[in-house]
């Protein structure tokens, strides 16, 4: 049995004690690690497309959908996330991204694009009959101003509505996947309960 974890830094780590590891171990599954620090939602879509086109067929794909304000870019760098650690001497791409947020960003555009990308993921899941569970790394209330112009917390089924960020805030200090050890256990239990209640595996 294989479980794919695809998303941002909330599913980046799969070492012992992390929620990804606990879930995989619970079902005796191997895991396909497709979580990436600072990933933007478009990059998540692209990785999902690659997974679909590969010969690997996971029994379950668990998504961690990220926030809309990260910047899709041609280098696949984590631009606009807290995981973004620029080099000490700023490269042109990093400097350009800082300028983008300072001078150009249109939040509404990011929110609407985010909705389009998630809808595309949902369409692909349906069209390819993929067994999926959707987690939200963030919901609008996790982010200072909330949604600006478009509600980007769109309906996804099956999904867990509690955001990973809201769990992370309550579970400090951060250890792996932005969560404490207890936080990782809590998320694992949420996921396992959901999988069992919906008989996803």
């Amino acid at each position, binding site marked *: 049995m294989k479980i794919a974890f695809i998303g941002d830094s909330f599913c980046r780590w799969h070492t012992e004690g992390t929620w990804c590891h606990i879930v995989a171990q619970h079902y005796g599954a191997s895991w396909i690690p497709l979580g990436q620090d600072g990933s933007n939602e478009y990059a998540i879509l692209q990785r999902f497309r690659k997974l679909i086109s590969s010969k690997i067929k996971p029994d379950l794909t668990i998504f961690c959908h990220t926030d809309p304000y990260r910047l899709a870019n041609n280098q696949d760098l984590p631009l606009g996330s807290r995981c973004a650690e620029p080099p000490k001497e700023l490269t042109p791409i990093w400097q350009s991204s800082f300028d*983008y947020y300072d001078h150009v960003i249109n939040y509404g555009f990011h929110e609407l694009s985010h909705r389009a990308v998630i809808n595309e993921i949902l369409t692909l899941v349906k069209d390819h009959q993929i067994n999926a569970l959707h987690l939200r790394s963030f919901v609008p209330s996790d982010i200072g101003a909330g949604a600006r112009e478009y509600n980007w917390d769109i309906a996804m089924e099956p999904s867990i509505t509690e955001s990973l960020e809201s769990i992370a805030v309550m579970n400090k200090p951060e250890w792996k996947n932005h969560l404490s050890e207890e936080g990782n256990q809590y998320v694992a239990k949420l996921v396992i309960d959901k999988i069992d209640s919906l008989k996803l595996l």
Partner: protein
Amino acid sequence: MKIAFCGDSFCADNNIGTWPYLVTEKLNAKCIWKGVQGANQYSILQDAKKIMVLKPDLIVFTHTTPYRLANRHNRPLGARPCEQNKHLDKVWETGHLYYEHLMDYGFHEFTHIGLVKECHNLCVETNTKVLNLFSFSTNELNFRHYKWDVELDNSYNEKSLARISYDFQIPDNDEYDFNEPGWSTLPNHMNYKGNKLVSEIVLEML
């Protein structure tokens, strides 16, 4: 009857002799909106939302290229204008740097498709009659990751406005009485014969 022309520079001129003018006149209608030079597709959608408040009887879109950069200042941030104006201020410079270092063509193409559909859906949801024209197509601009031509109900996909304009690039101002002599212009990127042709396409669709 109220008509809104919503889009980029291909419907930005509605003066006498232009295709928006000819369509409006033929339908004995009032023009309540015109396109914006260098508009990006997100700003076209935002304009469409504003137009809805005016309760138009018909919206004619000229959907633009996917490669313009949505921005909070509503400036015409395309690659070429940003290159030309990069010394003017930080917004232009940032636009230029975006194209130089960051731009993901696939992302622009993918979001463009969603934005065009959103424009159309907005009209369907509000029961507003809509025609979709496309200023560009992949026939001229090609594509990287997503073929971004969108086929919708009430859309004219045979030729883009840019493609039509290629055949009407010789100014013909002097052939029309309404122009002062000596001027040579290409309203909406084409001469008056080209504008006439586009108006006929629109009227035939209607």
